[in-house]
């Protein structure tokens, strides 16, 4: 069936289309060239509407052990916002920690068609995929966490060759059905298990003697050697620590031209100036990012309100437990693999530190020049729930709204920030880059994030509105693989999405080493550790989409 989407104003930066009225044609789930005879089975009138590819969230904690622990920790949070079942939709609850069905519907209602879990522990991968399978409509995928697992640390400490590290990273991608590799506080989560309470970029791990820098570079090298499209996704050392701007700058310099993606950069951009010894380091970080084309970033913007911080960084989450609000938290040491920490938190606009954190994130957005290298995230739920994205977009596009908001925060934070002096307003084109075109390119999703013939028909249609927050909150129509799934804010269909993976070739001899390791030290067999394709499909995914690696 050939469908014509008539006359919408298209923003398709991957193909250089900047607000041009154009028709789109869909057939069999894809965008296709206009039919030569002009014949269509259906036409939908989009004249006056704004059309973009479906949005892609490159970093959002939507499924897996720590997210589920966070839900269990906060029943009062979830009870405050429950959703009833309908004929088409399942029941659910939560805002900061939505249950899986609610997560899928709500993202789709906001015009998102793909979402990626950024910190999947290989030991917990099966669970993460089960939750993603219960997240309707959205395509999903995840980055496998490495860099604190004893297997890798032993390998590096024994000066294993580059080939072995490469093969282990590839094995992990296959076994956990991942799309990329993530590292969190390299060596630090492991060091905490040895009672180390802090770890800087060049400190030695208490047991293995390795530095975070060494671990980081080894993984970045392996990711590049394997041709994994997405760069090593880095949650750096010293998250949240005043003065960590220096760590972040050293990390950027230390990349030595290698590709790195620095995630939730806002939490890594703090100085120690001023009498409160907490200041913004955003300007220096932005300058470094602007001068380093090998670096991409996502912001991890703080949005005022109650949320939960959930991360793999046990070391820093344990340190931060005193700021828990409400006063309860969970930390876990996990399977000689990694760890996790869940700490509920409230960001207050009248609190100097929180208000300055809010400014730091916005400064980063406005000072980093290339919209192809900076992605819109709140590190859901760590900076705030994903349903705050439309408000964040308005803050970026509407300078006077931003200034109005700035006037309501802690006055000293305002004075310590550059924000008032920043005039920049994001255009729709730049928003489209940051929320669709760039994430798709960064992840290697060649047929998503754009609207040229051949692309999957993941399409979002917005009714124009002066208030961009309103516009982005409630798309008029959302298509997933050519099927209309949302209309006027209501879910009208809830098909299953697919899981995106990457599976580079590797030398199977690494499996001998792994078999020996598992048998000596682990509590599961390698066969049970792996997630097979059949298993993944049986759990409810529509398809496993494996993307090509890029030739080195």
């Amino acid at each position, binding site marked *: 069936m050939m469908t014509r989407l008539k006359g919408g104003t298209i923003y398709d930066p991957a193909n250089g289309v900047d607000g041009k009225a154009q028709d789109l044609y869909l057939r069999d789930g894809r965008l296709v060239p206009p039919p030569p005879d002009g014949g269509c089975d259906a036409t939908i009138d989009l004249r006056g509407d704004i059309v973009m590819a479906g949005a892609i969230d490159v970093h959002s904690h939507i499924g897996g052990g720590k997210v589920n622990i966070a839900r*269990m920790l906060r029943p009062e949070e979830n009870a405050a916002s429950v959703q009833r079942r309908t004929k088409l939709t399942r029941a659910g609850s939560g805002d900061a920690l939505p249950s899986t069905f609610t997560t899928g519907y709500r993202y789709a209602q906001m015009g998102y068609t793909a979402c990626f879990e950024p910190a999947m522990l290989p030991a917990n991968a099966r669970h993460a995929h089960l939750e993603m399978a219960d997240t309707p409509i959205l395509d999903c995928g995840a980055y496998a966490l490495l860099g604190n697992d004893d297997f890798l640390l032993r390998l590096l400490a024994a000066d294993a060759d580059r080939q072995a590290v490469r093969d282990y990273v590839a094995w992990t991608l296959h076994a956990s059905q991942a799309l990329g590799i993530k590292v969190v506080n390299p060596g630090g989560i492991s060091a905490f298990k040895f009672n180390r309470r802090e770890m800087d970029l060049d400190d030695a791990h208490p047991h293995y003697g390795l530095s975070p820098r060494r671990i980081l570079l080894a993984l970045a090298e392996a990711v590049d050697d394997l041709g994994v499209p997405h760069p090593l996704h880095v949650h750096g050392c010293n998250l949240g620590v005043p003065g960590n701007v220096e760590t972040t700058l050293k990390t950027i310099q230390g990349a030595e031209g290698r590709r790195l993606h620095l995630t939730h950069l806002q939490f890594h951009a703090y100085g120690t100036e001023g009498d409160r010894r907490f200041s913004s380091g955003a300007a220096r970080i932005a300058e470094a990012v602007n001068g380093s084309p090998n670096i991409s970033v996502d912001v991890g913007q703080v949005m005022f309100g109650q949320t939960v911080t959930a991360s793999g960084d046990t070391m820093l989450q344990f340190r931060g437990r005193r700021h828990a609000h409400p006063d309860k938290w969970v930390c*876990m040491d996990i399977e000689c693999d990694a760890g996790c920490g869940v700490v509920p938190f409230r960001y207050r606009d009248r609190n100097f530190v929180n208000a300055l954190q809010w400014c730091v994130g916005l400064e980063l957005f406005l000072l980093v020049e290339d919209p192809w290298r900076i992605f819109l995230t709140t590190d859901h739920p760590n900076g705030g729930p994903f349903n705050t994205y439309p408000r964040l977009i308005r803050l970026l596009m509407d300078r006077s709204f931003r200034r109005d908001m700035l006037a309501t925060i802690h006055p000293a934070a305002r004075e310590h920030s550059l924000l008032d002096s920043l005039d920049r307003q994001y255009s729709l084109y730049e928003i489209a880059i940051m929320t669709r075109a760039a994430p798709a390119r960064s992840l290697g999703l060649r047929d998503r994030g754009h609207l040229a013939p051949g692309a999957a028909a993941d399409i979002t249609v917005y009714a124009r509105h002066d208030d961009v927050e309103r516009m982005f909150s409630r798309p008029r129509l959302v298509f997933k693989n050519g099927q209309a799934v949302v209309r006027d804010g209501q879910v009208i269909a809830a098909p299953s999405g697919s899981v995106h993976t990457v599976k580079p070739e590797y030398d199977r001899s690494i499996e001998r080493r792994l078999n020996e390791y598992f048998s000596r*030290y682990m509590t599961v067999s390698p066969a049970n550790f792996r997630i097979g394709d059949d298993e993944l499909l049986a759990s409810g995914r529509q398809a496993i989409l494996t993307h090509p690696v890029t030739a080195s």
Partner: protein
Amino acid sequence: MPHIGGRPVEIEQAYRHAARLLRKARQPLITGMAADVSGCRAALALAELCGAIVDHQHGEAAMHNLRVLQSKGWLLTTLAEVRNRADVVLLVGTNAVDQFPRFFERLVWNAESLAGVDTGARKIFYLGDPRDTSAGRSPDGRRPTVIRCGQDQVAASVGALRSLLRGVEPRQDGFMNHARIAALRRLAATLREARYGVIVWAPAELDQRHGDLVVHSLSALITDLNAATRCAGLPLGGNDGGMTCQNVTTWQSGFPLRVNYASGAPAYDPALHGTRTLIEHGATDALLWLNCFDSALEPPHGRIPVIAVARPTSALARAADVFIPVATPGLDHAGVLFRTDSVVSLPLRALRQAGLPDARTVLDNIAERV
């Protein structure tokens, strides 16, 4: 064969009758919930459809942990960490092997450690009244230390341990006498000097009235110890699909168990929605019992219709209003089950053909006819 009122019937009749019972009920309850991930998913879908409460047969024990998690939180560890990192293991109110016979063999007296721990030199302590502590004996014959007390005295003992860690002498009385305090003082010192202490408990074995107080105390003890050294908790439990049910219910509803879908939206009430409480107070008028594993376990008695989706050898075949025999995950069909430490889930494989439907098939069929 399926049964209605003890008489064998075709499965279609059983499905229809079960659906009718659920449809007619004002507040149905789905409990037992001893199933794998696919069985739990189907049960939750059915619960949502017919407005039922969902609880697990070991819900009472699970609440000892959940109450503490939801009011205070904790610091926990997982099996491979214990195996590789622990140098001191304290078992509180349990000997671990009654529930997990291979606990010591797999996690304590293992040969090698990734963290350079001399596993044979691990120090083992029991606090409580363990039946059999022989598994706690080291390979070279060293006996564990047992600080014996009744289950109802465990909370006081843990409290004293916390005091001693802070350098505050506990008040002496008949129970907390000089010898006991000395033993607890030695334990406190050992935990403080440990590199990685592991404190083990089993919610199902704790004093049923005050289990959560013990867990709360243990959580506080662990937090205290982590000020200067490393220590973590390991709750043992989640048997009969308990951990699976808790995880699936949480990610699908937002709450871990005792969720009521009567209004169409999930409502969480751990006090009101417990199986035993509901039956004893006549607050439920139909019960669906799901147990794919153990044929010996049965729901509490009540004068309400029971739909049993259970093993073929279960006595419920004759006693239940409707009985539908079901396959066992990991024997008759593939599936996924969560391990006791909740992080790891294991793929189960089919080893034989039993010719019985799996829980998902049965529950989906009932749902279609509701």
